[in-house]
C-alpha cells in the first residue's frame, strides 16, 4: 500500500456536543480569566500609584479582596491555559502541532513572560504588605507588564491562524506574527482586559467597609479604566476590515448564527460601554455591587460571543490557506481524492458491529475523518438533520461540491465511493438505523459523482 498522504489520529466524540462547543467552553473561561488577570494587574498598579500619591483608600483597595481575585484568576487562568492545550489536541491535533512547529520559540518566549508574571504576582500577594512603597510599585509594574507581554505573544500566534498575511508568501515568522489582525486584536483585547478589571473592581469596592462617598470616589477612579471601551467600535471595525473578505461576509450577514454572535457581542459591549462612559465617567453616577455584577456577567457574554466569532471566522480553515478545519491541507485534498479519505486510517470504528454493510462502515469512517470536527450525526450541528429533506441526488451533489454548497465548508477530500458511502450513512441514520440496508453501487451514480468532484476541483469555495 502507498504511504498515507495524511497523518491520522484517533478521533474522540463528545456525545451530542460538537467539538467547537467543547473548545469554546474551555476557551471562553480561559480568555475571560486571563484577560481579567491582565487588566487587574494594571488596575492594581494604578491604584497603588494613586495611594502612594495620597489618594485616600486606594492602598486599602490594593490590599483588599481584589488582590486575591487577581491571584486566583492568574492561577486558574494558567490551569485553563493547559486545559486549552489538551482540548485543542482533542479537537484538532494537527492544528496545534502546526502552530507549535512554526512558533515554538515565540511560545517559549511567552512562557518566560508568564513565569515572570507568576513570580511577581505571588511575590506581591505574599509579601506586598511588608514591602516598601518603591518595591511594591515596581513589583506591580513587573506583574502588569509581564501579563500584557504574555498577551502580546500569544495574540500574534492566534491572530496568525485567521490572517497569516505575508507569511503565506514566504515572508517568514515575523510576517506571520505581525499579521494584519495582530494590532487590532491586541488593542481590542487590552481594552477588554481593562474593562473587566474596572467592573470587577466596582464589585469589590462595594464590599469594602467604607462610607458611600469614599466608595464613590474609588469607583470613579476604577471606572476610568473602562474608558478604552469607547474605542472598541473602531478597533472592531479595524479587525473586520483586515480579515479575509469571505470571513467578513459570514459576520456581516452571510451566516446568520455568526451575525447573531456579532450582534450579541456588539450589543452587550455597547450597553456596558454606554453605562460606563456616560453614566460612570461623565455623569459620575454611583454603581452598586448588583449592577456591577450584572455588567460583568454581560461582559462575560460579550467575551463568549466574541470568541465564537473569532473561531468561526476562520472557516473553512483552522490556519488560513494552510490547514482546513478537517485537519487536511489543500494539497492533501487532491491526494485523498485519489486514495480515498480513509484508506490509510489505521483506527477501526468502535461500534463497527452496529453497521449492517461495509458501505455504511466506510460512511461512518468518512464522517469521522471529514465531518466530525464540526458536526455530530444527531446532536449539535447535526448533519443528519441538516440534510434530512434533501433528495438523494441533491445530497450527492452537495457533498461532492461541498465548498460550493457552503463556502465555509472545505472541499470534499475523498473519492466518489466515499461520497456515496456518506450519502448512504446519512440516509440510514435518518431512517433510524434499520437492521438491513441495501448497498448502493450503481456505476452510473458513481460516475456522476466523480464528474461533479472533477468539475468542482479541490480549490476552496471562498477566497484562498
Amino acid at each position: 500500500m502507498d504511504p498515507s498522504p495524511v497523518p491520522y489520529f484517533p478521533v474522540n466524540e463528545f456525545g451530542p456536543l460538537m467539538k467547537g462547543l467543547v473548545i469554546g467552553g474551555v476557551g471562553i473561561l480561559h480568555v475571560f480569566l486571563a484577560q481579567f488577570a491582565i487588566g487587574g494587574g494594571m488596575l492594581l498598579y494604578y491604584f497603588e500609584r494613586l495611594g502612594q500619591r495620597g489618594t485616600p483608600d486606594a492602598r486599602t483597595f490594593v490590599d483588599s479582596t481584589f488582590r486575591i481575585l487577581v491571584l486566583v484568576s492568574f492561577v486558574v487562568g494558567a490551569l485553563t491555559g493547559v486545559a486549552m492545550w489538551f482540548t485543542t489536541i482533542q479537537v484538532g491535533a494537527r492544528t496545534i502541532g502546526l502552530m507549535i512547529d512554526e512558533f515554538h520559540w515565540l511560545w517559549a518566549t511567552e512562557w518566560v513572560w508568564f513565569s515572570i508574571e507568576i513570580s511577581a504576582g505571588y511575590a506581591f500577594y505574599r509579601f506586598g504588605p511588608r514591602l516598601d512603597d518603591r518595591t511594591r510599585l515596581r513589583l506591580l509594574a513587573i506583574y502588569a507588564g509581564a501579563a500584557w507581554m504574555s498577551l502580546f505573544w500569544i495574540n500574534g500566534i492566534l491572530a496568525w491562524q485567521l490572517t497569516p498575511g505575508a507569511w503565506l508568501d514566504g515572508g517568514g515568522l515575523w510576517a506571520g506574527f505581525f499579521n494584519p489582525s495582530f494590532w487590532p486584536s491586541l488593542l481590542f483585547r487590552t481594552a477588554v482586559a481593562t474593562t473587566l478589571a474596572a467592573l470587577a473592581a466596582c464589585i469589590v469596592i462595594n464590599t469594602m467597609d467604607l462610607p458611600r462617598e469614599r466608595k464613590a470616589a474609588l469607583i470613579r477612579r476604577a471606572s476610568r479604566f473602562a474608558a478604552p471601551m469607547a474605542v472598541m467600535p473602531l478597533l472592531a471595525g479595524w479587525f473586520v476590515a483586515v480579515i479575509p473578505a469571505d470571513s467578513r461576509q459570514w459576520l456581516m450577514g452571510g451566516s446568520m448564527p455568526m451575525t447573531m454572535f456579532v450582534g450579541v457581542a456588539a450589543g452587550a459591549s455597547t450597553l456596558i460601554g454606554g453605562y460606563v462612559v456616560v453614566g460612570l465617567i461623565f455623569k459620575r453616577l454611583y454603581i452598586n455591587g448588583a449592577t456591577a455584577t450584572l455588567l460583568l456577567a454581560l461582559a462575560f457574554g460579550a467575551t463568549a460571543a466574541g470568541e465564537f466569532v473569532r473561531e468561526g471566522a476562520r472557516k473553512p480553515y483552522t490556519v488560513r490557506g494552510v490547514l482546513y478545519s478537517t485537519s487536511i491541507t489543500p494539497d492533501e485534498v487532491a491526494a485523498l481524492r485519489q486514495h480515498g479519505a480513509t484508506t490509510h486510517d489505521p483506527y477501526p470504528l468502535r461500534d463497527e458491529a452496529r453497521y449492517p454493510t461495509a458501505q455504511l462502515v466506510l460512511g461512518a469512517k468518512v464522517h469521522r475523518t471529514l465531518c466530525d470536527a464540526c458536526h455530530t450525526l444527531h446532536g449539535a450541528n447535526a448533519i443528519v438533520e441538516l440534510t434530512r429533506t434533501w433528495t438523494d441526488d441533491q445530497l450527492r451533489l452537495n457533498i461532492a461540491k461541498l465548498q460550493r454548497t457552503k463556502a465555509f465548508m472545505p472541499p470534499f477530500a475523498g473519492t466518489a465511493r466515499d461520497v456515496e458511502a456518506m450519502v448512504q450513512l446519512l440516509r440510514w441514520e435518518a431512517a433510524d438505523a434499520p437492521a438491513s440496508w441495501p448497498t448502493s453501487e450503481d456505476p452510473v451514480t458513481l460516475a456522476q459523482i466523480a464528474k461533479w468532484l472533477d468539475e468542482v476541483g479541490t480549490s476552496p469555495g471562498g477566497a484562498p
Partner: protein
Amino acid sequence: MWPFTGSAPAAWLVLYLVTFALHVVFISYVLAGTGYALVQALRRKDDPIADRARDLLPFMLGLGITAGVAPLLFLQLLYQRQFYTANLLLGPRWGAVVPALIVGFYALYLAKATTMVRWRRLALATALVCFTFVAWSWSELHLVMQDQPAWRAMYAAGDRFYAQAGVLPRLLLWLGAMATLFATVAAWWAAAGDRRRLAVIALAGRLVSAIAVGLLVAGDAAVITAAHGWLYLLIAAIAIELAAWIWTWLAPGGAGVALVTGAGTAALLAGVVVREAPRLAAIEAPRTSAVEASGFWVFGLTALLGVALITWIVRAIRSAAPS
C-alpha cells in the same frame, strides 16, 4: 556530550530535560509535601516542617504548573505524534488532570487557611488524591506514548485506562523520588533537629524507588540503559547523596544538606536523561518547518531578562520586613 549535540532536535531535547527537571522539583514538593502534612495532621503533631509545607504548597503548585508548561511545549516538538495520540487515546480521562489540579489547588488553600483539624485533614487528603491521580495519569501517558502496537486495539476497545504492569512500579519509582526531593528542599528551612526526620524520609524514598526499579527490571521494562554514561553518573550521584543524608542524620547541623543538594541535583539531571533514553528512538524526524522556525534569539534574550527580573524579585522579597 550527548544529548547536547547542537542540532535543533537536540536543543529541544536539552530544553525539555532541563525544564522538566525544574518542574519535577516543584511538583515533588507539592505531592510529597501534601502527603507529609496529611500524615502529621492525622497524627495531630505540631510539626514546623508540616506547617511550612502547608504555607508553601499553593505557591509551589503555582510554580510547578508554570514550570510544567515549558517541557509540555518541547515534548510536542520531539514526540508530536506519540504525545497527541496518547492524549487522544486516553481522552477525557486524561483531560481530567486539569480539574484535578484545580480542585487540588483550592484544597491546598483550604488546608492553609483553616484552623479546624478536621477540615485540614479533609483538604489535604483531597489534594493528595488529586495530585496522585495526576502523577498516575502522567505515568500512564508516558507508557502509552511508547506502546505504538497497542494503539489500534486500545482505540477499538475504547479503553481509557492503560492497565499494563509497568504503570504502578513506574508511579512508585516517582513517588519515592518525590519524597527524597521534598526532603531535600524542606531541609534548607528545617531546624537541625527536624533534619533527622527528613533524612529518614529521603532514605526511605530512595529505598522505595530502588524496589520499584527492581519490579520494573523483573517485568522487562526498558528502564535501565547506560544512556551514554549518564546511568553511571546517576548511580554515583545517588551514592553520594545517600552518604550525605546519613551524614545529615548523624550531624544535622553540619554541611550535609549542601552536599545532599548538590548530589541530589546531579542525580535529578542524570535521572531525567536516563528516563528519556529508552524512548529516544521514538523521536520523530524533525519537521522542516519546525527546524527552520526562527525566533530563538527572542527567546534567548527574554530568558536572560526573565532570569534578571526573577532574581530581582527574589532579592526584593528577601528584604521584606519580618511578618
